[in-house]
């Protein structure tokens, strides 16, 4: 089944936030962001701005009737700066005018003067100065201290990954409409309607039942609208509440890029020990997460980095410590993978370092250490592992041996171009790591004409979750998909939702829908059985008809529903689902936090132009563990899209801040995501159907985040190609591997020669250009 939104998407008829027909009297907002990264506000002059034509009012923190606070996990983030600013772009004032142009023109007239405070952009510096968002956390398995003596080979090093701009093509935005009784309705481009509801409720001092948040769909989210849609919604709500007029704010791309957080940059120190047989005996890693100026979701992201710090390997002795470091950058936030990719990059860097030093292929170490079923993760859960199967199938059907030989032969006969090949196994845990978030609700109405309306907490943002939910209902009721409509996500219909995140949305909301539909179908079947005087067990719904004992009757779905209504059978159901089995004890850092894991292995091949430092990604060939895919078209789209987004993170996507904390890659002209020419020439995906029972909806494993991490292999493939050209050059484990980094590495000298000059200008964050 195709994505149910495809038809209207292709005709340009799908409605996004900026497409909602405006109510008469609507006003337009624009935020004024701090021009400096850190300082004490000495004066905020809005007089000239307020006098601009069309300006209705300029809101500051003083206008907030409730609490000036939008921090979700930690209450450390004001909606509008009061006495201090903590990052460039931090909202300080909100201009409301009668047109978008007038609002934006007025923003330019606002003047902020401040006493500068030192701006920190480097997480290691923040950690050294004790600027931490939360106390450090440590995951431990076995005992690393006593294990080093068993290691034949020990390697230490550092690795760095940069941030990543979400670049949803639809920017952030909100449209707030005042209602009677001081209530407010907010259309928001958010992955977390309840998060928006809470933030607005807090800022306006209104109970949650007066705050209605409605989401039709998003033009992309990728985590960027999980928590960071709150600000714009709260600003619009604040203005609408005071002015009693609808207020809309759809951000300009440059506002969006400058004011919102991104994927967290990480720095790490690692130490890895292997025995004679190349089994990894011990691994120690310290993560320095660049959280930005406020907590946002950083503590949860940090936790997932720890959960995935050993990727798909079993390591008996692990000590992983993570610091969430407060810097003067926009608060970094959720992004597909949620800290997992950073944790996985570091272990892959450690393995690559060992392989390079030992003069062997990293794949040898990777293969020898793959998780087996029953192996323990550092957080105590036992693996139900598909890692060996994925690896063996990938290296067999895509013939790793032959690929390796081809690359070697090419490299032996070419001096100006070099090829590189890398394997990237992945293992990703599915569930929100915060156990309480693993619950969802679905509201299913069957109307008397047989049509079905469904509302869940899931937000459609292109991932196809609504398509899968519709499939669930169609399956249970055994009716045509056309009879079912998935409605907008709305906090007045479904309460206390978890955001659409963690790859778990289809599982949670699909299971809730399964429960609701099953309950309604059960009532109808029971009624029919009674009417027909047969045993309820013999009655079933198939192809739109009632079947008895496997025989089709003349009673179709519609007549069944109508009979139900006449007999006063409940045709609506609100069902609740909570993932069973999962638990986690943060005091011991042990538990069983994930419903299941998703596995896979990809082979990545690249070619580097050793004159120009440019490169092509030739192929990504994956074997991916789908469980039992319920929608191959949707799932393939997630895999291909995830791979390319991951490759973008590892290659051309470079978030650049200057020393003053100003974003230099602040537009699409300076921040590059893959275009159609930049993507791998070939992507092959083998659907590994794994038979084990799991907690996924219809056993169709979550697919949103895991494939992004195949992209990490692009970094290591490029590294291998560079090393085929420059065997002795020193270059750090630092992503992204931009053409700049590639060229500098190709011509790096043995002892930090060229590269040192390079490091002075671009450190691990790319912040110091």
């Amino acid at each position, binding site marked *: 089944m195709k994505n149910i939104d495809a038809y209207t998407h292709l005709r340009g008829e799908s409605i996004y936030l900026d*497409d909602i027909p405006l109510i008469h009297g609507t006003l337009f907002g624009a935020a004024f962001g701090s021009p400096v990264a850190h300082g004490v506000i000495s004066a905020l002059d809005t007089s000239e701005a307020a006098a601009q034509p069309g300006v209705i009012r300029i809101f500051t923190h003083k206008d907030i009737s409730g609490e000036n606070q939008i921090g979700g996990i930690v209450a450390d983030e004001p909606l509008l700066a009061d006495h201090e600013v903590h990052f460039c772009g931090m909202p300080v004032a909100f201009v409301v005018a009668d047109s978008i142009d007038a609002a934006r023109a007025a923003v330019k007239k606002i003047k902020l003067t401040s006493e500068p405070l030192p701006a920190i952009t480097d997480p290691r510096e923040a950690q050294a100065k004790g600027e931490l968002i939360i106390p450090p956390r440590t995951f431990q398995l076995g005992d690393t201290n006593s294990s080093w003596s068993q290691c034949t080979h020990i390697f230490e090093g550092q690795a760095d990954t940069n941030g990543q701009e979400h670049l949803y093509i639809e920017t952030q935005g909100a449209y707030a409409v005042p209602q009677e009784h001081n209530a407010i309705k907010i259309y928001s481009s958010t992955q977390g309607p309840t998060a928006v509801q809470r933030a607005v409720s807090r800022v306006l001092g209104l109970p949650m039942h007066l705050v209605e948040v409605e989401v039709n769909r998003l033009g992309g989210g990728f985590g960027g609208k999980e928590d960071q849609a709150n600000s714009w919604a709260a600003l619009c709500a604040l203005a609408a509440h005071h002015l009693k007029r609808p207020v809309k704010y759809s951000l300009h791309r440059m506002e969006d890029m400058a004011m919102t957080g991104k994927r967290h940059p990480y720095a790490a120190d690692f130490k890895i020990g292997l025995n004679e047989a190349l089994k990894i005996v011990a691994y120690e890693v310290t993560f320095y997460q660049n959280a930005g100026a406020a907590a946002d979701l950083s503590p949860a992201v940090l936790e997932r980095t720890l959960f995935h710090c050993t990727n798909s390997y079993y390591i008996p002795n692990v000590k992983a410590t993570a610091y969430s470091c407060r810097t003067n950058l926009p608060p970094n936030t959720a992004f597909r993978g949620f800290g997992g990719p950073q944790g996985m990059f570091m272990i892959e860097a450690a393995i690559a370092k060992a392989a390079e030093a030992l003069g062997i292929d990293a794949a040898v170490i990777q293969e020898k250490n793959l998780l087996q079923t029953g192996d323990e993760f550092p957080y105590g859960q036992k693996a139900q592992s598909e890692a060996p199967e994925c690896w063996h199938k990938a290296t067999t059907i895509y013939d790793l041996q032959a690929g390796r030989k081809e690359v070697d032969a090419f490299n032996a006969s070419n001096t100006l171009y070099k090829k590189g090949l890398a394997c990237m196994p992945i293992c990703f845990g599915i569930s929100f790591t915060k156990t309480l978030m693993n619950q969802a609700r679905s509201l299913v109405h069957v109307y008397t004409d047989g049509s079905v309306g469904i509302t869940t907490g899931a937000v459609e943002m292109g991932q196809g979750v609504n398509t899968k939910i519709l499939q669930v209902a169609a399956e249970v009721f055994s009716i045509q998909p056309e009879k079912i409509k998935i409605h907008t996500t709305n906090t007045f219909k479904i309460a206390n939702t978890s955001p659409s995140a963690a790859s778990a949305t289809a599982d949670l909301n699909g299971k809730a829908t399964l429960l609701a539909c099953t309950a309604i179908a059960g009532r109808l079947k029971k009624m029919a059985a009674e009417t027909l005087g047969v045993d309820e067990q013999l009655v079933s719904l198939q192809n739109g008809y009632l079947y008895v004992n496997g025989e089709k009757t003349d009673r179709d779905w519609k007549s069944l529903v109508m009979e139900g209504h006449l007999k006063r059978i409940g045709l609506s159901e609100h069902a609740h689902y909570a993932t069973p089995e999962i638990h986690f004890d943060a005091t011991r850092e042990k538990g069983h936090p994930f419903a299941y894991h998703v596995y896979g292995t990809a082979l990545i091949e690249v070619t580097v132009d050793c004159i120009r430092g440019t490169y092509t990604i030739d192929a990504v060939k994956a074997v991916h563990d789908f469980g039992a895919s319920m929608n191959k078209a949707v799932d393939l789209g997630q895999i291909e899209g995830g791979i390319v987004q991951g490759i973008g993170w590892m290659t051309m996507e470079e978030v650049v801040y200057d020393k003053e904390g100003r974003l230099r890659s602040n537009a699409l002209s300076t921040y590059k995501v893959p*275009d159609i020419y930049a*993507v791998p020439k070939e992507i092959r995906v083998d659907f590994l159907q794994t038979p084990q029972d799991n907690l996924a909806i219809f056993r169709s494993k979550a697919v949103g985040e895991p494939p992004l991490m195949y992209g990490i292999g692009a970094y290591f493939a490029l590294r291998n190609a560079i090393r085929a050209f420059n065997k002795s050059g020193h270059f750090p484990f630092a992503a992204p591997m931009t053409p700049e980094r590639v060229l500098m590495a190709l011509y790096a000298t043995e002892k930090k020669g060229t590269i040192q000059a390079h490091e002075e200008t671009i450190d691990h964050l790319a912040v110091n250009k």
Partner: protein
Amino acid sequence: MPSGTVLLDFIRYHEHLTGTKVGCNEGDCGACTLLVGTLKNNELQYRSLTSCLTPLGNVHGKHVVTIEGLNMEGLNAIQQAMYDESATQCGFCTPGFVVSLAGFCLSGKQATTENAIAAIDGNICRCTGYKSIERAAAKVAQLMHNRQAEAPTAFLAEHGILPSWFAGIKQRLYSLQTQLDGELQSPTATEWVGGGTDVYVQKHDVMKEASIRFLFDDDQLKGIRQEGNKCIMGASTTVTAMSESPLLQQYFPRLADHIKLIASTPIRNIATIGGNLINASPIGDLTIFLLALDATLLFSNGEEQRACPLRELYKGYKMLDKDAGEQLVSVSFELPGADTVFNFEKVSKRTNLDIASVNSAICVSILHDTIAHVRISAGGVAPVPKLLDLTNAFLKGRSIDPSTIDQAIAIAQTEIAPISDARGSAAYKRLLLGQLMKAHFLTILENAMH
């Protein structure tokens, strides 16, 4: 509506046609792509463009096509191909892709997958990873296979690929144009606009109410012609027109490869040579291209004309040897002779649709294994686009060998002053220029072998 209004805003917020999306406001994502049909010499030609950078004045008297205009009963064949390949996820970029592919169908270009994909080279999708879109593009190319000499609009209507009313547009445009003459140009214009691809990135807000002289459709500023051994290009010639010029194709055999490195299809369709030169970017691709050709500019102040060598135009960062009242009329250069080799190199973070970290061109004549004349230009390494005079002087009279190239690279380092910015560190740009010089000579040697 003021003629400086951005077409995208007009479409969405005045006409309430919301299928066209706002993505980046700087021509870098393609979500706002529209088709514009221009009737000239009784020929109707459709081109895609980014409506976020296009002033209403530049579509005066033309046929503007949005996604809504491409919709038929059910899905049109382009939409169906994308549907079948699941080439849409969040859907926000999707109308832009459909419009761009319609542009391919209307272009009359050869029905190859490569050409279909080239038509969407300005469209960014963040969800799909493009593979499904590639598969759909291949299907769209397939749809066009059977077209022979037939006009694209007739073929498309006949095969139900696009709505049949396209066939009647020519007549409607003709009658529209006869009614419109002379309404547009302001005699007291303070701003001059070519394609708008730079000025509308920099200050679209100011442009909205500005008094504008629109140069884009000025026939006297259009066209590429040969006079003797000279090529003369009108200032409003688009990059697309350059790439499609038989004259340039003849003298620059690798023109298509060079042009592919410059912007994207919808931008090339509107970006002009004059705009690229006069905006004085230190990294303008055509500037670097034309510097190596030692191009000469012809300015007019309305009364008299003045010739100015391009190499003397740039006086400092964004400073020109040009009076405010002077307008660029044309650019001319000597067509390369048989013993002359031209090459253009550009490296950016992303190979296509990006601004260079460093770009460079070379025009070199080799006689009896020695360099008779050489001009190497370089962008991104100084406040102005540069001819590497010292390097060029050094190379003259020498034979091409590794040590000469190494020395030339060393000399080049003395005459550049790159800065660190979002496009790369100074150290990188220094290394990269040297590498691009090597690439030039490798290309020349390769050429010599053929």
